[in-house]
Each structure stands twice: as structure tokens, then as C-alpha cells.
């Protein structure tokens, strides 16, 4: 399953880069089990690694994960009816499991697709993070290995598909300019949050159907 393999590679990158930024090996592992949302994990580690406050990291991560609310409204009915199924199923709600469920018309098949995708990605993502974190310990000083470049490159790769949409691209570029312009004057972490002001440039021009809600996991 190509998606699951991709998740373990991304997870291994997250583990290695996190350890390279100075975190103990178990920290990316704990994050992946407890948070299980790759984009916000990269985001939180990146903000803290750049000297930002944990509060800014948490806030940015929560705004990033706000997109799971519409996911849940769209696929909430496929999780199952019991409380246990709803609780566990909610934790497995990621871009991929949501997309797989929405691609199935038949409710039973949608439910099977959601759980199969969610469970297999939870396992492969966390195994990948563990392997990456342990391997990252052997790497040493991240600056000499260029791991500080690997981190933004990884996030850029996660972001790129969403930038195809012109309105999103305009907002994101405006936000990036705001973040860069304010970086010399503000404590680390704040410029990234301030980038949300770039959303004033977000104008959906025509009513087009977006087939894919968002590409980040």
C-alpha cells in the first residue's frame, strides 16, 4: 500500500529531524502517538527549534488541525455508533482516512476503507517515527549535516499540492511575506501566527468543487 509506505517514510523523516533539532528520541514518538497529525507535529517542533515558545507551537498546531472539524462533519457517520468506535475512530481521522472514506459511495465500504486506512497509517506512521528517531540519534550535529534544511524542505513538500489553488496560494504567499517581515522584530513563533493575516488575500473567485480538502497529514 503506497500511502502507508509514504507515511512511514515521512514519519522516519519527522523522527530523525526532531532528534536532530535537539529533542530526546522518545519525544517525537510520544507526539506521534498522542497527536497523530504530521503537519502540526512538524509545525510544533519547528517553532520550538527556532526558539519559539511552546504556547505558540501549541496554538499554531491547533489552528493547523482545525481542518479536522469539517473532516469529522463529512465522515463522522462512518466511524460506527458505539462510543468506543467514535473515540478511537476520531483519533484515526486524518487527511488520508477521510479521503478514502469519501471516495466510497456505499456506507459499509466507506466504513471499511476509513478504518483500514486509519489503522494501517497509525501503525506505519508510528513505526516510521520510532525508526527515524533512533536513527537520528546516530547522526550528530544537525547543522553540519544540513538537517536544518531538511526540515523546511519536508514541510514545503507537504504544502506544495495545496498551493495549486490560486486563492490559497495568494493567502499563503502574503502570509509568508508578513512572517518574514516581522521575524527580526518579534519573538520566534509569533511571526508564523501573524501570517494568518495573509488570509485577507484569500478570495474564492468562482464556485468550484474542491475534490481534496487538504493535503497535509
Amino acid at each position, binding site marked *: 500500500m503506497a500511502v502507508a509506505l509514504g507515511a512511514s517514510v515521512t514519519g522516519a523523516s519527522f523522527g530523525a529531524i526532531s532528534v536532530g533539532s535537539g529533542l530526546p528520541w522518545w519525544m517525537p514518538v510520544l507526539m506521534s502517538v498522542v497527536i497523530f497529525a504530521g503537519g502540526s507535529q512538524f*509545525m*510544533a517542533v519547528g517553532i520550538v527549534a*527556532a526558539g519559539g515558545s511552546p504556547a505558540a507551537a*501549541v496554538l499554531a498546531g491547533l489552528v493547523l488541525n482545525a481542518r479536522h472539524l469539517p*473532516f469529522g462533519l463529512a465522515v463522522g457517520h462512518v466511524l460506527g455508533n458505539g462510543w468506543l468506535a467514535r473515540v478511537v475512530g476520531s483519533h484515526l481521522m486524518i487527511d488520508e482516512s477521510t479521503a478514502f472514506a469519501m471516495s466510497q459511495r456505499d456506507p459499509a465500504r466507506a466504513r471499511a476503507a476509513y478504518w483500514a486506512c486509519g489503522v494501517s497509517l497509525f501503525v506505519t506512521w508510528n513505526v516510521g517515527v520510532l525508526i527515524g528517531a533512533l536513527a537520528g540519534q546516530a547522526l550528530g550535529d544537525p547543522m553540519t549535516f544540513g538537517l536544518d534544511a531538511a526540515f523546511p524542505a519536508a514541510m*514545503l513538500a507537504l504544502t506544495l499540492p495545496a498551493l495549486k489553488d490560486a486563492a490559497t496560494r495568494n493567502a*499563503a504567499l502574503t502570509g509568508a511575506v508578513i512572517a518574514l517581515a516581522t*521575524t527580526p522584530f518579534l519573538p520566534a513563533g509569533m511571526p508564523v*501566527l501573524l501570517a494568518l493575516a495573509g488570509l485577507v488575500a484569500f478570495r474564492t473567485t468562482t464556485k468550484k468543487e474542491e475534490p481534496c480538502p*487538504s493535503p497535509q497529514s
Partner: protein
Amino acid sequence: MPVTAVLILGAGTFLIRFAGPLLRNRFTLPDKVRDVISASATVLLLALVAVSALTNGKQFGGWALAAGVLVGGLAAWRKLPFVAVIVLAAATTAGLRFLGVS
């Protein structure tokens, strides 16, 4: 990264996820709001990419770092595998630093 921050982010993320299945019969989200939520994720990610690719947290972060991220970005744009994006970015930056470019 304190453990408390991880637990708060984890709990908050869970509540956001859990709210959907819980509220879906009583509540619909306007398309416009859904689009803005989706766009804000991309805005945050690209802003962090820009800041961590071009600065050290205060000022310009050096040509080696910027070039490495650029090479990684090009690799991603050319649809190279994720691991190739990361290795190319890190190798470019490390190589330039080895050659004395900061």
C-alpha cells in the same frame, strides 16, 4: 518541547476531531468557513517554511540553508519521492557548508 505542550496539543486535536462526529446532525459548516480553515493550514505551513528556510530566527539564515531548501522544493515540485526531497535538501546545505559557503 515540554511534555505538557504535547499533551495539550494532543487533547485539543482530539476534541477538534471528536466534535465532527458528535455535532454532525445538529450543525453544518458554511462552505466559506470550511475553505478558510483549510487555507489557514496552508498559510501557517508556508510561513514556517519561509521563516525556517530564510532566517535563523532573527536575521538572514545564510545561502547554504536557503539553497538547500530551494533544491528540496524543486525536487518536490518535480514529484520526486519525499525521502529524496529531504536527502537532496540536507546534502545541498551540508555540501555548501563543507565548501565554505555559509
